[in-house]
């Protein structure tokens, strides 16, 4: 049974009255002012004063001297530069308010603040000339009550500019330069033991895009604070830029436990500027001296580990493993070769026929990408397509495939279909995809109705409304849309209802199971029945044996494709296949 405490204290609506130290009556200020009115005579004569002025002008630190009426005595070059004073140096005797009014580096509130503080300082007892510090954004000022005179404002450069150069202004943490310095120093210690933790936010871009940059900035400050509270005094925390943070631990042990805590902590929800934000964190760790002894290498290895953490599904941490290096190198080499292949045109298309069931006539060909590399030989699409998708090369490659397939198909003696695979990545720029299709059709003269685009279920997992709009635009051009590899992905039947697909291609794994297991049979039969009732053509892929072909016919499949009919063949072998008499696939043809 729930208990409740009826003795909770009532809320208090009290507002603390804030009294500002240094605020004094105008009267007193005036009196004070009068007492100090007559300045002490300048000792040492005009030459000395002139020498002092020159010295002050040459100071690296900014300096503004004001008389007891807050009128300008002098303002050196450094001060003018820091205040954003444009044009000729201000005249002697200029009122502080007018001096500040022309200081481009200051905002109205900051000008008012400086003036108020100067007046307050003038009003203080002359015997206690405590310098007062005032920080305005990047500027930090020091105000001095000059005994027997007015006020001096110092604008330190050296140290504070140096500090600012090492600080991330958004979060107040160190920046990349501070991190480099700390890393070098840590590695130079006798034990050279360091754990380097790289942390990247997941889905931060989404927050920025949907709530705006001010909310994104506020979120970064909250993340910085959560990270800061989890660290020990000897640890170094910096923001490298964007949504990347780095942490240096002066020890190699304990990094994993900390990383686990940080992933949990940073991934907890945020209430920021009136919005609920859910982000995650991925972490990569590399340790010195076991993973690397040199700063650059340690950083690269932590980065590889971070990449691995993201590849494994994000919101987790990964420690650097030596095999990550080898994998990264292999991937790098493949990427170089792939970029070269695009430039050199090392790709070819092979064509595999699709035949009607049971008549056996060829109704079209699927264009399949082949990459013949001089050193690697024939590279499997399974190896290079995922990389091409990741680095965006799939877009130009896909456009080449479209052009080439349409041109080839236009030359065929029979008006059969040509089917082209389109990557989900190509759907991220729908306008470009539509343009590529239009150009391929226009330049080849192929009617849109002879082009079939095969998409996988992953395409539908992207922005659904946007994707459907692209699919409908393709349909409007007469282009047919086929759902490829059906049954391997999410296989949601609701996706079949989301768009009027022209064709479903049942993944080859199901027909392979037909002879061994009954599950495959049930799937092929069910999908064939479903397709028939929805008016969608059902194609069975991967048919390799007579028994499988017979099963396709018996279960009501409309088309089939596979080695039993023909392997994919080069473009110049297509005419011979088209000339072949229609047969039920009795002969085993190898291409």
């Amino acid at each position, binding site marked *: 049974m729930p*208990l*409740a*405490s009826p003795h*909770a*204290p009532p*809320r208090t609506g009290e507002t603390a009255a804030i009294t500002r130290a240094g605020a004094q009556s105008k009267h007193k200020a005036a009196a004070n002012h009068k007492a100090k009115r007559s300045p002490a005579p300048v000792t040492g004569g005009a030459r000395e004063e002139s020498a002092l002025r020159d010295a002050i002008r040459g100071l690296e630190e900014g300096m503004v001297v004001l008389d007891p009426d807050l009128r300008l005595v002098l303002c050196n070059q450094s001060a003018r530069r820091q205040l954003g004073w444009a044009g000729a140096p201000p005249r002697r005797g200029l009122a502080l308010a007018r001096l500040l009014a022309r200081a481009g580096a200051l905002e109205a509130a900051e000008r008012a603040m400086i003036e108020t503080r100067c007046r307050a300082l003038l009003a203080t007892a002359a015997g206690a000339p405590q310098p007062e510090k005032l920080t305005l954004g990047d500027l930090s000022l020091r105000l001095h009550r000059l005994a027997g005179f007015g006020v001096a404002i110092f604008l330190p450069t050296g140290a504070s500019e140096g500090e600012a150069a090492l600080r991330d202004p958004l979060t107040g943490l160190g920046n990349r330069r501070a991190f480099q310095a700390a890393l070098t120093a840590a590695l130079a210690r006798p034990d050279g033991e360091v754990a380097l933790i790289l942390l990247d936010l997941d889905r931060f871009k989404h927050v920025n895009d949907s709530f705006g940059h001010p909310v994104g900035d506020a979120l970064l400050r909250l993340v910085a604070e959560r990270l800061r509270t989890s660290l020990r005094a000897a640890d170094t925390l910096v923001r490298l830029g964007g949504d990347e943070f780095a942490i240096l631990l002066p020890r190699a042990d304990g990094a994993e436990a900390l990383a686990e805590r940080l992933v949990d902590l940073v991934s907890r*929800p*945020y*209430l920021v500027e*009136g919005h609920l934000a859910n982000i995650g964190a991925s972490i990569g760790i590399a340790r010195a001296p076991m993973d690397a002894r040199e700063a650059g290498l340690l950083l690269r290895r932590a980065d590889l580990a971070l990449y691995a953490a993201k590849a494994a599904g994000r919101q987790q941490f990964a420690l650097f493993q030596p095999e990550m290096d080898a994998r990264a190198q292999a991937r790098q080499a493949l990427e170089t070769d792939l970029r070269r292949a695009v430039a050199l045109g090392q790709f070819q298309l092979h064509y595999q026929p699709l035949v009607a069931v049971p008549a056996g006539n060829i109704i079209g060909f699927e264009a399949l990408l082949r990459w013949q590399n001089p050193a690697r030989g024939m590279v499997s699409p399974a190896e290079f397509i995922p990389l091409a998708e990741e680095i965006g090369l799939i877009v130009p490659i896909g456009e080449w495939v479209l052009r080439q397939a349409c041109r080839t198909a236009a030359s065929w003696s029979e008006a059969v279909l040509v089917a082209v695979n389109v990557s989900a990545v190509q759907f991220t720029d729908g306008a470009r995809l539509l343009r590529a299709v239009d150009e391929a059709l226009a330049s080849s003269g192929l009617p849109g109705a002879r082009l079939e685009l095969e998409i996988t279920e992953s395409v539908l997992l992207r922005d659904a409304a946007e994707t459907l709009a692209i699919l409908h635009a393709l349909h409007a051009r007469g282009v047919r849309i086929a759902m490829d590899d059906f049954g391997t992905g999410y296989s949601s039947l609701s996706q079949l209802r989301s768009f009027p697909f022209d064709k479903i291609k049942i993944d080859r794994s199901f027909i392979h199971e037909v002879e061994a297991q009954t599950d495959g049979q049930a799937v092929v039969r069910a999908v064939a029945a479903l397709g028939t009732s929805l008016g969608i053509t059902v194609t069975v892929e991967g048919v390799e044996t007579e028994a499988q072909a017979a099963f396709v016919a018996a279960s009501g499949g409309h088309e089939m494709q596979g080695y039993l009919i023909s392997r994919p063949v080069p473009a110049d072998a297509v005419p011979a296949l088209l000339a072949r008499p229609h047969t039920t696939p009795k002969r085993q043809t190898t291409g």
Partner: protein
Amino acid sequence: MKQDLYRAVYCSRISIHGPPRRIADELRTILKVSRRNNARDDLSGALLFANQCFAQALEGPRAALERCFERIQNDPRHADVTVLEFGPTATREFPKWSMAFAGDPSPEANDPLAFVVFEGAFARAREQAGSAVLGLLHGLVRREEAWALA
């Protein structure tokens, strides 16, 4: 001030391990501190503890509410925080309470109503879960208020 009034409703799972006595002690500490801070920050709300889960409604000026939520998030004594509701509100649901408390700290305690609500809260339908938890908290607090008046 009025237009700046926000409410957040969240659930989380306790991560204090130990005998019921220790959990009860921690809960008392949590309540004491939150009541003090909330009174200072013009926040009100209600906390329910049952089935090893917390449900909390917090309401007040947005900036103070967000700061308070950050403090709660940094607390290692709970995990799996799910925000069920967050947004502006015209009125306070718990105007009299810096933090009303409903719940039995013993781990054996099993309030079937709370159980159903928590299961819903950690499932996907967040909007309904938010109002269900708020309704539950409200109902419990009203009941206690009625008893206190009687």
